[in-house]
C-alpha cells in the first residue's frame, strides 16, 4: 500500500514539476524570451558558485563522517602496508591540491565570466608557453609518483625474505583451504585430478614423501607476528582473489597458475583488537574477484599470533596424511613427538582434528 502511495506521490511531483516548467516557458514567451534567458543565465551562474561552495563543504563533511571508518586511522597491519599508506598520502596530497584548485577555477570562471552585455570576449586561441607549462608540470609530478610507486612495487613483488614462512592458500567456491609445509618446510606435490572433497580437498599426491607432513585446514590461517610470510596462491575452480585489506595486500588465485605474495604482519589479532577498539576485530580474507553467486560469502580468517602461541597451535595439528591414514602416523608408534618445543603442553589435545 505504501508502495502505491510512494508511486502516486512521485508521479504527482513529476506532473507538477513538468507543468511548472512548461508554464514558465509560456510566461517566458510573454515576457520576452531574451529577457527570460538572461535571468536564467544569472540564476545558473549563481548556482555555479553555490555548487562550488556547497560541494567543497560536502567534501569536508563526507570526510568528517567516513574518514574514521576507513583503514587509514590506524597503522597498516603489515610492515609493507605502511609503505602503501605513505604512498597513498603523497598521492592524496598531489591529487588533492589539483582537485581543489581546478574545481575552484572551473566553477569560479563559469560564474565570473557569465554572459554580460558589457563584456568583450577575449579572442585567445592558443598560447604555447601556457601549454608547455601544463604539459611539463604534470609530467614531473607524475614522474615522482611513478618512482615512489615502482620502488614499492618491486619490493612487494620481489622475492620474499629468506626467513619467510610459507603457506599455501587455495580458493574454491566458496571458501579457502590453507596448507602448511610441515617440518620439512616443503609443500608436497599435488594434482587436481586427485581432488576428493571428503578426503583430499587439494588433490595431494600421497606417494610424495614431502606431502606426508603437510597440514591442511580451512577457515582460519595462523601467522606469526613479525615473521614474513609468503603465500603461495592457487585456485581449484574459478579465479578468486586473496584480499587482505588490513595488510594492504591482494593477489588473484588463478586455476593452473600459482601466484605468490608476501608480507610481514605487524600486530597480532589481539593487539589489533586493542588498536581498533573493536573486540570483534579479526583479519578477514575477502575474495576480491567475482567467483559466482556465493562470492560475497567467501570469507577467510587470519589469526596473527606470537611465535609461542603459533608453535603451540601448530603442534596440535595433524598432517592431512596422518589424519587420513592413521596407521601410518609415526607418532602412533613412538610417542616421543618430533615437534619438541611445546609438544608436552598440547599432548592431551593430540586428537584435535587438523581440518577445523
Amino acid at each position, binding site marked *: 500500500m505504501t508502495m502505491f502511495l510512494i508511486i502516486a506521490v512521485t508521479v504527482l511531483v513529476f506532473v507538477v514539476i*513538468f507543468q511548472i*516548467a512548461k508554464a514558465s516557458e509560456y510566461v517566458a514567451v510573454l515576457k520576452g524570451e531574451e529577457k527570460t534567458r538572461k535571468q536564467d543565465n544569472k540564476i545558473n551562474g549563481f548556482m555555479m558558485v553555490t555548487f562550488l561552495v556547497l560541494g567543497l563543504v560536502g567534501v569536508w563533511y563526507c570526510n568528517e563522517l567516513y574518514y574514521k*571508518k576507513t583503514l587509514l586511522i590506524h597503522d597498516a597491519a603489515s610492515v609493507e602496508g605502511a609503505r602503501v599508506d605513505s604512498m597513498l598520502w603523497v598521492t592524496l596530497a598531489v591529487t588533492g591540491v589539483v582537485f581543489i584548485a581546478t574545481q575552484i577555477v572551473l566553477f569560479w570562471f563559469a560564474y565570473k565570466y557569465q554572459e554580460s552585455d558589457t563584456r568583450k570576449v577575449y579572442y585567445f586561441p592558443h598560447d604555447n608557453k601556457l601549454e608547455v607549462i601544463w604539459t611539463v608540470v604534470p609530467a614531473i609530478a607524475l614522474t615522482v609518483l611513478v618512482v615512489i610507486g615502482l620502488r614499492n612495487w618491486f619490493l612487494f613483488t620481489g622475492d620474499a625474505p629468506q626467513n619467510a614462512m610459507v603457506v599455501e592458500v587455495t580458493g574454491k567456491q566458496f571458501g579457502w583451504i590453507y596448507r602448511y609445509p610441515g617440518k620439512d618446510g616443503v609443500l608436497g606435490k599435488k594434482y587436481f585430478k586427485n581432488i576428493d572433497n571428503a578426503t583430499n580437498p587439494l588433490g595431494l599426491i600421497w606417494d610424495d614423501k614431502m606431502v606426508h607432513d603437510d597440514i591442511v585446514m580451512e577457515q582460519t590461517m595462523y601467522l606469526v607476528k613479525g615473521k614474513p610470510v609468503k603465500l603461495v596462491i592457487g585456485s581449484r575452480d574459478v579465479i578468486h582473489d586473496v584480499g587482505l585489506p588490513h595488510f594492504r595486500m591482494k593477489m588473484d588465485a588463478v586455476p593452473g597458475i600459482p601466484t605468490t605474495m608476501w608480507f610481514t604482519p605487524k600486530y597480532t589479532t589481539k593487539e589489533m583488537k586493542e588498536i581498533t577498539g573493536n573486540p570483534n576485530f579479526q583479519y578477514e580474507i575477502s575474495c576480491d574477484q567475482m567467483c559466482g553467486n556465493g562470492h560475497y560469502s567467501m570469507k577467510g580468517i587470519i589469526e596473527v599470533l606470537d611465535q609461542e602461541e603459533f608453535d603451540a597451535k601448530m603442534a596440535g595439528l595433524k598432517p592431512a596424511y596422518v589424519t587420513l591414514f592413521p596407521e601410518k602416523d609415526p607418532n602412533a608408534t613412538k610417542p616421543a613427538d618430533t615437534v619438541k618445543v611445546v609438544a608436552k603442553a598440547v599432548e592431551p589435545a593430540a586428537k584435535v582434528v587438523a581440518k577445523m
Partner: protein
Amino acid sequence: MSNEAVFQAPAAAGTHHDAHGDHHGEHHHHETFITKYVFSQDHKMIAKQFLITGMVWAVLGGLMSVLFRLQIGYPDANFPWLQDLLGKWWAEGGKITPQAYYALVTTHGTVLVFFVLTAGLSGTFANFLIPLQVGARDMASPFMNMLSYWFFFTASVVMLSSIFVENGPFSGGWTAYPPLSALGDASPGSKTGMDLWLISMALFVVSSLLGGLNYIATVLNMRTKGMSMTRLPLTIWALFFTAVLGVLSFPVLFSGFILLIFDRNFGTSFYLSDIFVNGVGALPNEGGSAILYQHLFWFLGHPEVYIILLPAMGMVSEILSVNSRKPIFGYMAMIGSLFAIAILAFLVWAHHMFVTGLNPFLGSIFVLLTLLIAVPSAIKVFNWITTLWRGNIRFTPAMLFAIGFVSLFISGGLTGIWLGNSALDIHLHDTYFVIAHFHIVMGVASMFGMFAGIYHWFPKMYGRYLNNNLGYIHFWITIAGAYMIFWPMHYEGLAGMPRRYYDYSVWESFKQFADLNRFISTVAMIVFSVQILFLVNFFYSIFKGRKVTTQNPWGANTLEWTTPIHPGHGNWVGEIPEVYRWAYDYGKDGKEFIPQTKPIGDDESHH
C-alpha cells in the same frame, strides 16, 4: 567531387537513392514509413534510432542498478511487491536473490558500457554529426550504416531475451572472466544466459565495426571543399579517433570471445586448466591460461573506456567553445592530446591486471604508460578551463552539462593516478574505490557528454527545443546526485570494501558502511527518477517542444547549422557549402561568431 561519387554508391547497391549529388540533395522520391523510419539509410534517422534504442537500454540498465542498490542499501528489508513484479527467481519473498543480484550487476555493466555509452553515444553522434559537420550528404556507405544499426538492434534483442531464460542471464561480471564464464556448472548464469550474452556481444562487435569503418571512411574521404583535417570541429576529431580505436580493438575482443565459445562448447582448453568443480569433479582440461582471456579482453576493454569517453570530450569541447562565445583554447593541442590518448589507450590494458600475478617488470611498464595518460588529460582539462576564461558564458542546458563533464572528468581522472600506480592498486583493486573512479570518470562523465550533446543538437534533430527549465532541474540534481552517490564510495574503497558483494553485514571489516550504503541507494533512486523526467522532456518536446525558428539558434560556426531547420536526406538544398576557416572563430575582431562558410576577409587579423 568524391562526395558525389560515393553518394551514388547506394544507388548501385540496389536502393532508390536519388543521385543528385551537388545539384539538389533533397529527395523527391517516394519514402514509405518503412524506408523512412525503419530501414532508413539517412544518417540522421539512424542516429535517432541509435539514440532511442540507447535510451531504452539506459532506462533498463539504470533500473537494474536501482534494483541491486536496493539490496545493498536495504539488505534486511523485504519488498513483497518485488516478487509480484519480478517473480521468484529474481526476488523471492521480496528480497533480491544472490543469483538475481549478480545477474543485475553483470547486465547493468554490459548494457551501460556497450549498448548505452558505445552504441547510444558514439552511434548517435558519429552518425548524426560526421556528415553534417564535415559537409557530406550522408555516410560513405549508408547501407552499411543501416546494417550497423540493425546488427545493434539484433544484439539488443538477444541480450534482452537472455533475461528471460531459465537459469537467468549471465551473472559473472561484465568482464566475463573464464573459468567462471566458461563453466555452466560453476555458475548457473554461465549456462544459456552466457551463450546468449556471447551471441549478443558478437553481433554488437559486427555492428560496431560496420559503423566504425564507415565513420573513418566518411571523415577521411567526404569532407566538403576547403574542409582540411585541421579545420574539422573537435567533435569530428574525437569521433574519428573513437572509430579508429573501435576498429582496431573490437576484433581482438571478438577473438577472445571465439576462444571462449570453443572452450564452452567444443572441449578446447584455451582458458581452462586444473579445474575441479564441486558436484562435477575434475575437468579434463589442462594447459590453458585463464589470464590469456584477460589480455584479450582488456586489449579492447581499455580502449573501450576511451571509445566511451572521447566522443564526450569532443562534444564538450565544441559546446564549451560555442557557449563561451570564444575559440576553444589550444585547438592543435586538443587534437594532439586526443591522438596521444588514442595511442596510449592501446598500451595500458594490463593495468587492469596488476594483481593477476603479472610479471612485475611488465607491470612496471604498464604503470609508466598508464600514468603518462594523465599528461594529455591534464592538457585537455586546462584547455577547457582556459576556454571559459574571459568568455561570455551562456548557460544553456548543454553548456551546464559540458561544465559538469569537466568537473567530473577532473574528479574521476585524478583517482586514476591512484589506481594506475600498481603498488597502490594492490590495495585498492576491486574495491569500491574503483567503482567510484570509473563511474565518475567514464560512466557519469560520458553520460554528461551525451546529455550535453542531446541538449545542444536536439534542435537540429527535431526542429524543436527541449524545455530549458526541465533541463536546469535535470542538470543540477544529476550532478549533485552523482557526486553524492560516488564520492563517498572512495571511503568504502579505502576501507578495502570489495565490489560485487551481495551483502556486507557478515563482514567485520565492511559492515560499518550500512548507513552510507542506504544513503547512496536512496540518492541513486532520486537521480534515476530525474532521468525519467529528462525522458519525458525529450519525448514530449519531439512533438510539442518550442519550435526552432532560426537556422542557427546557438550562433555556432559549424556546418550543421547551415542546413535547413528540417534537413532532408542529403542535408543541404543545393550545393554543399564550401569551408574557408576553422570552426572556432568566436569573438574574433569584435564579431560574435564567423561561420566556417564565410571567406576570410582582407582585413581579418591573423593568429
